[in-house]
């Protein structure tokens, strides 16, 4: 099978903060239609890598191609064009706290296109349905929502412009296992239904096992990418510890029968 051309291509990216090298020549391809999970210990630069891919952070050297365009060297307008093609959810939701959920979802649409109020309402309704939020959530402020609902509302906002590419930063962090599992289901469902390409940072092994096709592990400022089964056989001690530690075994035991029915 011929490999399709990657949606995102990270090439030899080096990131350094002061004397500390976070990424030392990291290369990574994200293929269309896949769900790629990025894992790594705390402080290994997962979020920096994500921010680099989003064009929010310029690396010291190396380049990031999103749909063939280099976001590290792009002008403001080019970058804007790329930014409109992807949706992002941040770790804590980053919903605008003074706007209602509906206004949050409509914000990017209003910003770029001029749609009538009726259309905006219809599009908002669809997005709320997509992420499984009840219609009365639309008029609520983010502070009136539970943690799980905030994540869903943030996802709805990320989907506002019908992106083909979705970045999720720790989508299930801080959720109870039941909410986390239903969020995983939601991500898988949207991935199937919308044919999205998804890149997610996660610490949650259950999420990794339930949703991801491939896994990228950041170790020693480098990156190791493989399929889930492949990476579990990787002899690196950190990976072995990560995937075969006590927490991992519990997650695998509970995820496998459910995932393979």
């Amino acid at each position, binding site marked *: 099978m011929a490999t399709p051309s990657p949606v995102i291509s990270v090439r030899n990216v080096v990131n350094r903060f002061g004397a500390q090298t976070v990424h030392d020549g990291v290369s990574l391809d994200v293929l269309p239609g896949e769900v790629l999970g990025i894992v790594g210990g705390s402080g290994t630069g997962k979020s920096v890598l994500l921010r680099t891919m989003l064009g929010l952070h310029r690396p010291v050297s190396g380049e990031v191609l999103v749909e063939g365009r280099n976001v590290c060297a792009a002008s403001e307008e080019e970058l804007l064009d790329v930014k409109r093609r992807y949706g992002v959810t941040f770790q804590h939701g980053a919903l605008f706290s003074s706007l209602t959920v509906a206004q949050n979802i409509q914000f990017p649409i209003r910003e770029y296109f001029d749609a009538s109020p009726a259309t905006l309402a*219809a599009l908002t309704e*669809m997005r709320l349905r997509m992420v499984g939020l009840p*219609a*009365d959530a639309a008029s609520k402020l983010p502070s009136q929502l539970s943690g799980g609902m905030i994540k869903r509302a943030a996802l709805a906002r990320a989907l506002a412009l*019908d992106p083909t590419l979705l970045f999720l930063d720790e989508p299930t962090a801080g959720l109870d296992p039941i909410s986390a599992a239903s969020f995983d289901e939601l991500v898988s469902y949207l991935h199937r239904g919308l044919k999205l390409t998804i890149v997610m940072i996660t610490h949650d092994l259950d999420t990794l096992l339930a949703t991801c096709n491939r896994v990228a592990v950041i170790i020693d400022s480098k990156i190791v990418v493989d399929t889930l089964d492949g990476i579990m056989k990787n002899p690196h001690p950190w990976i072995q510890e990560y995937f075969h530690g006590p927490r991992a075994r519990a997650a695998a035991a509970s995820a496998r029968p459910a995932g393979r029915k």
Partner: protein
Amino acid sequence: MARELLEQARTGDALTVRLGGAWRIENIAAIEAALAELPQEGTRRVVIDARSLEALDLSGAWLLRERLASLQSAGGRIEFAGSPPSQFAFLEELTAQELPETALVERRSGWRNPLGWLGRISVQQWHQGIDAIGYLGRIAVTGVRSFRPRHLRVASITRHIYETGIQAIPIVSLIAFLISVIIAYLSAQQLRQFGAEIFTVDLVAIAVLREMGVLLTAIIVAGRSGSAFAAEIGVMRLNDEIDALHSMGVNPFEVLVLPRLIGLLVALPLLTIVADAMGLAGGALLSSLLLDISLTQFIPRLQDALAPTTFWAGLIKAPVFAALIAMVGTYRGMQVRDSSRELGRLTTVAVVESIFLVIFADAVFAIVFVELDF
């Protein structure tokens, strides 16, 4: 643009709709216009031909689907030439899902119901008043309880004296100096008409010591520190830091409110003395420059003009103003909930209210002093 997206051809009571172009959110306005061209009713059969469609995203598909649904409910039958776009299957699945039970949304009556509005405002104000009195009570109780060495946060109080007092010295001095120069200048011009320039000294001294020194200082401090109190405590509320204190069994009033209150109670009278001194210096400078009243004449004149109580009549107000500013600032900060907009609103409220209360209290003082002949 709309032409390109949608073409319709009518044969009898059947309508053939040919879709083309990019039905994407980028063209949302054009999509709206195109869909509006479809007839509302009177079609028995609608044939959708989506085979030459270049692109369709969910937004476009949803709007199309909604429009078709309304045609269907008006008695039309929807058919697709070829297979329907794949997005429709997803949307079909989406709408088939059971949604969580939705609660009734309560509608707030606005301006349209003035009586209800008035009532709600009154009740709100009533609760607000009770709340404020409760706040005052809590500060008093905490104050009495924590007047023991370990409970009095000396480091924190010192910090607040430094931030609200010492750091405010330059701006307070400058403004006191300039205001007294202005008063001296204007009064000298008026008094000159009667040949009574020497009374400029009396006027400046009394105005600065009794009113201007303390009032201006309080207003500057309300703007500087009242807002800072509200914002600091407000951010701590947004970050749940207040709840964290509660959970450790630490009284936030003791840690946050009392040090600010005590700090300002110390700082504001001291600042007032600085302002008084600078005000008199301004008066002296202008008198010597403009009125040829040298410092050796100015000082004895000053001593004659002032009753022993004049200075204290000003200074005694400073702790009262300090208490008002500190309490309003911290009170409003504690009220911040939920959003960054609240933080901004309540900080503004804190400054406006504390300035208002300072001036109101000053008016009360003026009346009481006159009655007491102080």
